[in-house]
Each structure stands twice: as structure tokens, then as C-alpha cells.
């Protein structure tokens, strides 16, 4: 098998007392798009920052293309940055307002000494064309562009070095629906043409359903379920994933009103003091005794590639006899 482009093993990141990421593992294969889904405070953005070493992991390892980069110095990390780039959420604050679009997109080329400034123009023009911007845009400043155009510039900057991995943190959340559609189409096209792998971080289930090959669902710093997109959407195994899917707004009045919503009680507990046992047990409609003491491991009941971290998927722990009628279907 090919070496995965990104492998994260038992990643932990604590900010002081806040346990943002608490033992997370995932891999992204070549040309694969992984959708990392979670609500606010689930730790999904921290994972992205750790991959790019924008923040130091507390423990665990991050391997890029077979090379352990967890403890590389900034200097040693620098050549590797050619292969990993990031697209940010806010197209207003992630572009330097005093740089022209040409300067913004050519900066990675110059920084990595791929070419000189006077040779870069052509490459920048070609890249802008790929993201659907006219070359006249090169001399413009960010404030002259719309939100959608800015996000295209962000994409051009991330892709100009033809990286192996792109980390995209909510890249379309700030955009209106019609603009979002064109940016999502663009990301799909570019990914197909250029073949980069992508860690796509978002709270929006419909976006990853459209775009991702694999999904990982996070809750309070851990992955609770992961699997191929279609399988996870049609047969979610973890009660949290089920609740998340059932609560997502559906643009169809008949379906929206007839469906059975799983309403979760209470709020997400504080990552300062996550619950013992399964972190979801305080809100889980199916929780039983073992959930309050034993933290379930990610397990696939059929030994496939769709594991969930829930006692209900592991037969020996299922309290079917104790709670009749409270079983999950899969």
C-alpha cells in the first residue's frame, strides 16, 4: 500500500487545562479528501493547526509522507512546508491587505526559492486562471475583491506550489450559498486535476457529504466515528453522529417536518473537565452504566473501515437485556 500522505497517531493537544484534542488518530491517503466534522469546541481546528505545526502538539506523532515531523525544528520543517498548505475560513482577514493579489500568490514561490520574482508572474497568472480569476486581478488589492474572489485567491496561494496536502479550515462557511456552490465546485475540480490530498475541516455536514471520500466525526477532542462518506451518511453508528445527521437542516419542508429528530439534552460539556467514561454519555439518549465509567474505543463490529467509539457497537458490552428496545440499528 502507498504511504499515506498524512498520518496522525494519538495526537494530544492541551492548552493549559483545556483538553482540545485528546488522543486522535487518522490517516489520509494519496488524493483522498477527509472531512473532519464537529461542532464548536470539538477540537477540529486544533487538529489542522497541529498538522501544519502552527501549534505544538502536547504528545502523539504527525507523519507527513512517511516522515515524522512532530518534533522537527522550525528550520527543519521549512522545506516540508512546500508540500502542506492551508486555506483559512475568513477570506477577509487571511489576505494581507497591503499586498497585491500577485504578491500574495507569488509569495510561496519566492519564499521557497522555486523561482525568482520576475519569473513568478507567469506561474501566478496560470494559477489565477485555474481558480477562475482573470489575470487583470493580479494588480488588485484584497479589498477590491468580493468574498468569493478572495477565497479563490486563498486557494491559489495554497495550491501554487502544487502541495501534496491541503488543510482547509471551514473554507466556505463565510460565503453565501450561491458563492459557496462555485467555490465547492472549484475545490472539487482542482482536487481532481491536481490530485492533492485534503483535510477538510467543517461543521457543515452537507458540505462534506458533497466533497469528502472519508468522514471523521469529532466530539470533545476525540473521533467518535469514521468511515467512507456514503456509508457513514446512510448508516451512522454512533448516537452522536445519528443526532447530528437528524438535526441538520433539510431544505425540503415535507422531509424536514416528518423526520424524527433526535434532540440532545443539555450542552456540550466543558473541555476543561470532560466527562469520565464516554465523553458523550451526559447527552446520549442511549447511555447506560458502562458509558459512565469506561471510555469506548473505536471499533468496527464487522471488522471493516467504519469504526465507532460506542459500547453499543461492541456486542459483548451491549446491555440489550437491561434496556429493552434501546438498541441501535445497523
Amino acid at each position, binding site marked *: 500500500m502507498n504511504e499515506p500522505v498524512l498520518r496522525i497517531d494519538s495526537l494530544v493537544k492541551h492548552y493549559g487545562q483545556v483538553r482540545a484534542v485528546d488522543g486522535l488518530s487518522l490517516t489520509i491517503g494519496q488524493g483522498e479528501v477527509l472531512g473532519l466534522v464537529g461542532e464548536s469546541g470539538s477540537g477540529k481546528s486544533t487538529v489542522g493547526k497541529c498538522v501544519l505545526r502552527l501549534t505544538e502538539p502536547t504528545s502523539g506523532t504527525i507523519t507527513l509522507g512517511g516522515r515524522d515531523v512532530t518534533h522537527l525544528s522550525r528550520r527543519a520543517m521549512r522545506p516540508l512546508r512546500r508540500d502542506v498548505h492551508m486555506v483559512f475560513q475568513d477570506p477577509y482577514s487571511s489576505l494581507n491587505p497591503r499586498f497585491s493579489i500577485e504578491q500574495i500568490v507569488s509569495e510561496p514561490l519566492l519564499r521557497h526559492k522555486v523561482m525568482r520574482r520576475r519569473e513568478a508572474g507567469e506561474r501566478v497568472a496560470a494559477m489565477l486562471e485555474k481558480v477562475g480569476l482573470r489575470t487583470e486581478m493580479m494588480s488588485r488589492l484584497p479589498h477590491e475583491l468580493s468574498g468569493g474572489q478572495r477565497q479563490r485567491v486563498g486557494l491559489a496561494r495554497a495550491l501554487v506550489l502544487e502541495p501534496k496536502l491541503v488543510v482547509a479550515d471551514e473554507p466556505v462557511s463565510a460565503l453565501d450559498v450561491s458563492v459557496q456552490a462555485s467555490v*465547492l465546485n472549484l475545490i472539487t475540480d482542482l482536487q481532481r486535476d491536481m490530485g492533492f490530498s485534503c483535510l477538510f475541516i467543517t461543521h457543515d455536514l452537507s458540505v462534506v457529504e458533497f466533497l469528502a471520500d472519508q468522514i471523521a466525526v469529532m466530539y470533545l477532542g476525540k473521533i467518535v466515528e469514521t468511515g467512507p462518506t456514503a456509508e457513514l451518511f446512510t448508516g451512522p453508528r454512533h448516537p452522536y453522529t445519528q443526532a447530528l445527521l437528524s438535526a441538520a437542516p433539510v431544505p425540503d419542508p415535507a422531509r424536514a417536518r416528518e423526520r424524527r429528530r433526535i434532540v440532545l439534552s443539555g450542552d456540550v460539556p466543558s473541555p476543561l473537565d470532560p466527562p469520565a467514561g464516554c465523553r458523550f454519555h451526559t447527552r446520549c439518549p442511549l447511555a447506560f452504566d458502562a458509558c459512565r465509567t469506561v471510555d469506548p474505543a473505536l471499533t468496527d463490529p464487522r471488522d471493516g473501515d467504519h469504526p465507532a467509539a460506542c459500547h453499543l457497537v461492541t456486542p459483548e458490552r451491549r446491555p440489550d437485556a437491561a434496556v429493552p428496545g434501546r438498541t441501535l440499528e445497523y
Partner: protein
Amino acid sequence: MSLLDITDLTVGFDTEDGHVHAVKEVSLSLEEGEILALCGESGCGKTVTAMSVPRLLPPRTTRLTGSIRLDGRELTTLPEPQMRQVRGKEVSVVFQEPMTSLNPSFTVGFQIAEVLRRHENLSRGTARRRAVELLELVGIPAPAQRIKEYPHQLSGGMRQRVMIAIAVACSPRVLIADEPTTALDVTIQAGVLDVFRDLRDRLGTAIILITHDLGVVADIADRAVIMYAGRAAEQAPVEELFARPLHPYTLGLMKALPAAAVGGPGGRRRLAEIPGMVPSPLADPAECAFHARCPSGQDDCLAARPSLVRHGPAHLAACFHPARSGEQP
């Protein structure tokens, strides 16, 4: 006569760059106990339309014409002291961002009681008891303890419930909710939408829901107005709107949703894009504002501006070439 009648509302703002045409000739009505969604993308005028009702627009730069009648009473010309009696009592507002709309230095109980003491002249003790009832109404557990807490001690979903409790404290006739669930996570959003539905069912409150999210519209609204570039493009009962969208813009919005592109036969498809950009609000040419982006645009769309035309009992669309019925989103 409806509970609320807005007729030919036109709102503009004087800015350094010139006169911004925010809302143009919008007419709509709201019945008692109805949930009406004002829907559209950034800058379409949905918030300005709604905020014209309680007159929450900057008075010095706002140019407003048209009529807004609440129970037959004209609000646009009402003197400010009387308007103050309307605001918060007959028309109240829930804003998008619950953290910045609550005062961080007062307990939530005090902030709910404040409205009651001001509008209903309740005593301190009665107001506090009523505050507890209101928190219970919006689904906050242990309300007697919660009223002693400060906004920072509550989660986002809880804060938004407190905002709703304040807004409905005086049993308003009309509740305006501006993107009330946009800042919330999906699992929390569902619960807050239930609170609105419940208020309408139990108190008969009419609700104007401002949102960009067609999923929210489908879930909770009875009727929807789709706005584009300051005008109403289409207006219909929600089931009708989603089953038979007539305006190409409405159809475009529905097709652009990622949810529309998955789950169908043939696996993953492309999303339908709406090419081009929203026209500048500084100009107001006498043509269809959508024609430059419209797949069914023709010459007549440039020659005149289409007005809202009735296509069904309650279905209006402003388009010379509406989608034929049966064209599915």
C-alpha cells in the same frame, strides 16, 4: 386587514459613497400566529425590511417611504414616545449574536425583569417570578437558579433562549428573529427552532424570521419571501415554494445547496452555480436586477423591471419568464 401590513416599503441610506438603495417597494403582510421567513443572501435587504418595523434603523441617515401598519396603526409616522411603547411590547426583536446583545454586567433575571418592570409596571418580586416562568417557557432547566447567573455563565444556546425570553416577556404581537440560530451548532439549533414553534403554538405570536438558510425555512416557516437586491423576488407558502419555485433565483438557490447534489442517482454531481455577482446597491436601474445572472433572461428583462405577479392563490413571483411549474429544484 392583517396583523402587520407593509406596503411599498422603500428604504435607503445616505452614505459617503452615495445613496444606498437597501429595500425597494416591498409589500408584505403577516397574519396572527404566522411564521414568515425573509430569506436571501447578504445584502438582499431582508434585515433592513424587518428592522423598519420597530424603527431600529439609524434615524439620521435612513430615508424611508411607504407604510407599515400594525393592527391598522401606522408605525412610520408614530411619534418616538409612542413608538417606545410599541418596541419591546408589541414588536420585539431577537438578534443573531446572543453574547453581544445581553449586558454582561447584569444577571439574566434582572435583564428579563427590566422589560416587565418598564412595560408592565410589575413590582420587583412579581417581575422576578415572571422571569422564572419565562425561562421555563423557553426550555431552560432549573430556571430559579439560572436567573441569578450572568450571561458569561451560560452557553450560546442558553443565551439565545434568554434573548427569546426577554423578547416574549410582554407577549408581543410580532417577534422579529434575525438569524437566531446562525451562530449556534446544529444540535443546539434544532432545540432553539423548537422554542419558536412552541411560542407560536402556545401564545399565537407572529414571527418574522430573517435567515439565509433554506433548511431553516423548510423546517419552521409557514410562508417565505425570497429577496434579491432589495426587492421581493418570490413569495409563497413554504410547501408550494419548495415544490414549485417560479423565480430563477429561487430555483438557483435551491440547486446550489450541497444537499441538492448528493444522494441522487449517479453519485456525486456538480453543484449548480449562480454566475456573476449581486448588482451594486448604489444604482437602481429600471431592469430586472437578476437578469445578468439569470439562465432564462431575455431582452425584455432589460427593458423593464418585472413586478410581483400572482401565479397561484398565495404564490407571487417577479419574473417575466418564470420556471414552468413542474421544474423541480
